[in-house]
């Protein structure tokens, strides 16, 4: 089961109403390499991964939900005071007519989230390599958002999230090594 804590993992401050930036952040909300995809990917793979790695997938998957909440908070704060005209100017006119200012799981181009973004191959090495790639793609996406962002307060939180992707990637790489060691030890001739 899961249990809620009424706090973000890391503080999220935004400088000004900025719906354009909110639109870019939707890539990490409902995009292919976003936080929703990450959480669902790891928490689904863990049932068939070797016991040694279940804890890691559970804990990283759970942390991804905390990141999803941070991204949601950013999008909410950046758009909550925006007028329909401002949303339209930011390229969120299509979003507005369907959702008003509600959040929705789509990417920066408005494409809705799909389970096709994630994989579960049942092969531990294949799954973990996918997870490493997912973390690296998310890290790169955070970097591009930081590069294009004009909000220094927000960038502080984005840098935190970028660093988390690096840590997760490193932990998954360690998990691969653990499984390889096990595999090599089991060889009997």
């Amino acid at each position: 089961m899961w249990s809620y804590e009424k706090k973000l993992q890391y503080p999220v401050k935004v400088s000004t109403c900025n719906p354009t930036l909110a639109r870019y952040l939707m890539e990490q909300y409902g995009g292919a390499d976003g936080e929703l995809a990450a959480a669902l990917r790891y928490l689904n793979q863990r049932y068939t991964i070797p016991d040694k790695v279940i804890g890691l997938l559970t804990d990283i998957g759970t942390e991804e939900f905390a990141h999803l909440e941070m991204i949601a908070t950013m999008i909410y704060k950046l758009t909550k005071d925006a007028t329909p005209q401002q949303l339209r100017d930011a390229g969120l006119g299509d979003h507005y007519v369907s959702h008003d200012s509600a959040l929705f799981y789509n990417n920066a181009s408005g494409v809705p989230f799909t389970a096709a973004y994630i994989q579960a191959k049942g092969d531990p090495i294949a799954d973990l390599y996918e997870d490493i790639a997912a973390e690296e793609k998310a890290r790169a996406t955070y970097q591009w958002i930081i590069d294009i962002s004009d909000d220094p307060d927000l960038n502080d939180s984005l840098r935190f999230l970028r660093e988390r992707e690096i840590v997760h990637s490193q932990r998954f790489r360690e998990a691969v090594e653990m499984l390889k060691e096990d595999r090599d030890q089991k060889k009997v001739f």
Partner: protein
Amino acid sequence: MIKALPNEYYQQLEEIQAVDFVLMELTLYLDTHPADSHAIQQYNHFAHNSLLLKQKFEAKFGPLQQRSINQKNDFWMWKSGPWPWQI
């Protein structure tokens, strides 16, 4: 919607966020290094710290976690804000 919060709210919350971050980091580290007794010692030290900080915060600002004690007998405080995206 949300009345202004005292600086103390933000300070105490940030302390909790910092300690819980250490716990998260150590958790992931220990998931792949489960026999590192120095890291386990650190983990237990900060787990205790986190507990104390949360008790102090909740006594003043209401429950931070599900299953915490409700401080008032006549009002269910969990349902009250501020929620994380409102501060």
